[in-house]
């Protein structure tokens, strides 16, 4: 028995020693470097917030779609002011170069107040018209690395896009282009701060930064339209446009009674107005993002039979 015990002890000691030698250099996993895809968390309303526009406005390509690559290929001449090169890119996706049919009484050329700071960021106070764009481009044809100073992607948006401009340029991910593509949505109906008839939106939201995104507005609209029986049978029903101001409390309940803002000589208007009010009352409470209560505290809802019937 003693022989076995001694042999066993030696064997275990040998195995332990081997373990001491073999185990410490456990190789750590080699993680191959992965090209990180820059992902930005952008509030959805930046992309879905629509500009004020005309219903019959034509669909336009938004400018500044691909100027991001131009300064990289053709460096700017040293004498050239970098400002000009910067100016030709940020041509904002605003209706400035919009076609003429815009009526005179809508003088505010830009729906959002933001475009004003954007040209300042480009160090040139005058807003750059689209016609000016081709002019600086040919000048920008001499090798000089100074153009890296040029902020290539200034957009009439909150300061976030400038951060994206500083990111590595070799990435294919171009948030500006995506935003531009998304902005190609036909401008229709929605406005946040103009005096024109707004289908939906709060009067209080002019001073605050809180804005409802289009998807959230659509959600509210969908909630209400489910309960609405449009007066389809009335004479001239498609002209029975009812604007109702609704005040909501934080739980989404209607506080007070909805107020009909417009009037019409059509005898069926009273029925249409009361059906709209009933729809508002019946569908309460509404589920809306609580963090944006300022935006939907007071909502002006446009009950347009032509739109709501269809969708």
């Amino acid at each position, binding site marked *: 028995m003693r*022989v*076995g*015990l001694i*042999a*066993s*002890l030696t064997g*275990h000691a040998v195995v332990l020693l081997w*373990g*001491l030698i073999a185990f410490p250099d456990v190789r750590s996993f080699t993680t191959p470097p992965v090209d990180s895809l820059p992902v930005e968390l952008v509030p959805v309303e930046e992309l879905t917030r629509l500009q004020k526009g005309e219903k019959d406005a034509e669909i336009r390509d938004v400018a500044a779609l691909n100027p991001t690559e131009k300064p990289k290929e053709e460096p700017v001449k040293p004498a050239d002011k970098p400002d000009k090169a910067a100016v030709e890119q940020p041509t904002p996706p605003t209706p400035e170069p919009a076609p003429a049919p815009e009526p005179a009484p809508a003088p505010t050329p830009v729906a959002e107040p933001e475009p004003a700071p954007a040209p300042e960021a480009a160090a040139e106070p005058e807003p750059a018209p689209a016609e000016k764009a081709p002019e600086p481009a040919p000048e920008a044809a001499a090798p000089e690395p100074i153009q890296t100073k040029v902020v290539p992607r200034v957009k009439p948006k909150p300061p976030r896009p400038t951060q994206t401009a500083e990111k590595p340029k070799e990435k294919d991910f171009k948030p500006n282009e995506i935003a531009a593509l998304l902005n190609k949505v036909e401008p229709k109906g929605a406005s946040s701060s103009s005096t024109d008839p707004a289908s939906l939106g709060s009067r209080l939201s002019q001073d605050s930064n809180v804005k409802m995104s289009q998807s959230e507005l659509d959600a509210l609209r969908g909630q209400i339209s489910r309960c609405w029986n449009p007066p389809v049978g009335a004479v001239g029903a498609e002209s029975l446009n009812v604007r109702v101001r609704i005040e909501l409390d934080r739980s989404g309940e209607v506080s007070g009674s909805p107020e009909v803002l417009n009037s019409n000589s059509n005898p069926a208007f009273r029925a249409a107005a009361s059906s709209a009010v009933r729809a508002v009352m019946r569908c309460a409470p509404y589920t809306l993002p609580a963090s944006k209560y300022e935006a939907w505290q007071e909502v002006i809802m446009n009950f347009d039979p032509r739109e709501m019937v269809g969708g």
Partner: protein
Amino acid sequence: MNELVQSTLAAQDGGISFFALFWQAHIVVKIVMVGLIAASVWCWAIILDKSLLMGRTKRQMNRFETVFWSGQSLEELYGTLHHRTNYSMAALFVAAMREWKRSHEGAKPAIGSLQQRIDRVMDVTIQREAERLENRLLVLATVGSAAPFIGLFGTVWGIMTAFQAIAASDSTNLAVVAPGIAEALFATALGLLAAIPAVIAYNKFASDVGKAVGRMEGFADEFSAILSRQIDERS
């Protein structure tokens, strides 16, 4: 609880070597590990001892059988064997022959129930030999069945304390979690390390003992037949 946190967090720079795994472990896990290592040592000691014993027994039986069936007279064989301590078949033969001799020593030989006495003596000897061969095999069986559970207990305990430490450190980073779980799993590894050879060896030795006992029983039957013939011839 703070100790747990520190021991788990300290594991990050301690590495994964055997000693590091051992020293970082909780005291219960340490006891389990030490016990399992001791069980493994003891098991291997038994295994080595038994394999030597089995080989020796087999050789002795082979040698005795060749001598026994070589035509040598039983008296002579008994004369050479009965002075030393004998094992297995030789012990069987010596026990039977001693009973035979004693029965013929007196003035009046007690041959009447000699056959039964010889059978009984040989049975007892077979039992004693089997017991000698099976000795400590039960340890192997116990370790083989219990060591995994003991190791599992150490693992469960280690993971429990690791999770407590994770909860206290407010971090679910894998670098914090991994050392505690590694040290816990080390206990199961030791349990399996002790159990697997024990189970295999137990099965092998149990069948070896069965074979040896069967062989001895066969020899006892044959020898009993020879003695019975002698008794009948003399009476």
